[in-house]
């Protein structure tokens, strides 16, 4: 195993995802940061550096460099603060940078906060930006996953029912998570009969938007001993797409590559993983992530969810928090909320949705769209 400096999770803070109409992005972020500081039991003056993730405030509110506002409001003026935008992996990219700062020996405590406010009338579908030719030719995010779903069905025989089972499973998990936005159980028929967004994907197979914030406080081994933190970061990987042409839409090379790198760095394999939080932006995405993460063989993702293996109580529970599909997806908060969920599970504090005996967990996130590939992918492995 590597001898580089170790990084530990000192504190987490997650707000319930949903509509926070009366509150600003900064207000949500500050509360999440406060929760993480209290969880860790550290004072703001001990924090050496801050990263703030947000994607949409510049577009929706005309705001920029909000991170400095957030950290100043938390009593962390003067310290270095960096604003992070990496689409859906903004939060987990902020986490990755925080890990690097500690591994570099620059700081002993680094706080990463992600916040998003997007439940607004002017919020349309997410795209790659209005100057991208693909966007101008009508590419919207649900379409890029529908195109993958069509290929996956064609090549591996994945069925609409199998995809819908991902939504049913994650909603069943969400019933056990008081912080999830949608908690009522749904049936296979309801998922399949909800309106088509981009065929074969229906509305209940697409993650809803949400306002929300999440924070993760990281620390060095020295501080971890003082604070008695036992959840360590075994590996954190951030990669970009290859953008090779042609891209294979049924086997996501960037997803596989990211998984291979994180397992190599962690000195672990899929068989060691007790639970997964993954980027189920759409049902087909979760099926493809099972395959990339090695939870099943390539092409077997549909049959994997059908078998119950990905449900709480199965061989590798996936998205026991309810996932993006039930929690909602406040873009820059999602990555950190996934890491917070895995931390909670490894601390055995997850209540009714606890994966019993969880020792090693994985948080996976993906973001952005370019040339039929993702722009960024992150995977974090945490272990006791």
């Amino acid at each position: 195993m590597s001898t580089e400096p170790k990084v530990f999770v000192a504190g987490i803070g997650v707000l319930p995802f949903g509509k926070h109409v009366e509150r600003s992005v900064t207000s949500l972020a500050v509360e999440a940061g406060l929760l993480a500081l209290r969880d860790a039991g550290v004072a703001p003056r001990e924090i050496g550096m801050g990263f703030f993730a947000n994607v949409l405030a510049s577009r929706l509110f005309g705001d920029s460099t909000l991170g400095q506002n957030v950290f100043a409001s938390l009593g962390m003026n003067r310290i270095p603060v960096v604003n992070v935008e990496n689409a859906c992996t903004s939060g987990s990219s902020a986490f990755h940078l925080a890990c690097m700062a500690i591994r570099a020996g620059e700081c002993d405590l680094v706080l990463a906060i992600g916040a998003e406010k997007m439940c607004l009338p002017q919020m349309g579908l997410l795209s790659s930006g209005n100057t991208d030719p693909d966007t101008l030719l009508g590419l919207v995010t649900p379409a890029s996953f529908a195109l993958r779903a069509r290929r996956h069905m064609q090549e591996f025989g994945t069925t609409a029912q199998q995809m819908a089972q991902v939504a049913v499973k994650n909603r069943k998990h969400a019933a056990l998570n008081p912080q999830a936005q949608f908690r009522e159980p749904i049936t296979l028929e309801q998922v399949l009969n909800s309106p088509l967004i981009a065929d074969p994907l229906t509305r209940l197979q697409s993650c809803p938007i949400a306002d929300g914030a999440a924070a993760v406080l990281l620390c060095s081994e020295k501080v971890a001993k003082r604070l008695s933190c036992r959840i360590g970061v075994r590996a954190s990987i951030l990669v970009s797409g290859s953008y090779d042409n042609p891209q294979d839409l049924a086997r996501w090379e960037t997803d596989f590559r990211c998984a291979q790198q994180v397992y190599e760095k962690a000195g672990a394999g899929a068989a060691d993983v007790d639970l997964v939080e993954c980027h189920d932006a759409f049902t087909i995405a979760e099926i493809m992530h099972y395959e990339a993460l090695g939870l099943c063989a390539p092409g077997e993702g549909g049959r994997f969810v059908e078998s119950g293996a990905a449900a709480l109580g199965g061989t590798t529970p996936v998205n026991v928090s309810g996932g993006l599909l039930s929690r909602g997806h406040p873009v820059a908060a999602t990555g950190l909320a996934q890491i917070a969920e895995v931390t909670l599970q490894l601390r055995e504090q997850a209540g009714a949705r606890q994966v019993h005996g969880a020792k090693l967990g994985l948080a996976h996130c993906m973001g952005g769209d370019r040339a039929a590939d993702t722009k960024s992918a992150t995977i974090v492995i945490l272990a006791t």
Partner: protein
Amino acid sequence: MTQSLASVVPGLYAHNEQGELELTGSFCAACQRYAYPRVEHCPECLQPTERKPVGGKGSIYSYTVIRTRPPFQLPEPYAVGYVDLAASGLRVFGLFHPEVIEQLRIGMPVALEEIPLGINNDGQPCLRPVFTPAVKSDEH
């Protein structure tokens, strides 16, 4: 009508000598690599590329019909997908002709056309390239 409208992305496609529409990409002679959309420098060797057509005919690799509120005043519903171009081997993203969205199948041969469709970033009506089922020459 068609004559007075501008393309949604100027320089994205052009007619070849046979009068057929082809997407305009780039080619690196040193690496023998095509790119679309066009890049100024080859990402492999960083040498300047030459502008080159990458084809307008191919077969459908994947497709979907989008039934949410469409962007850029595109028709509701509208269809998009990836087409494997015969000339360059590139897999390119594109729109399908609104009149053929119920006929689309993986592997279907298609060819590029331009039609007035939706608006551009300035809110003006514009032309867009669309793939339509390829018509055999004896049917002309």
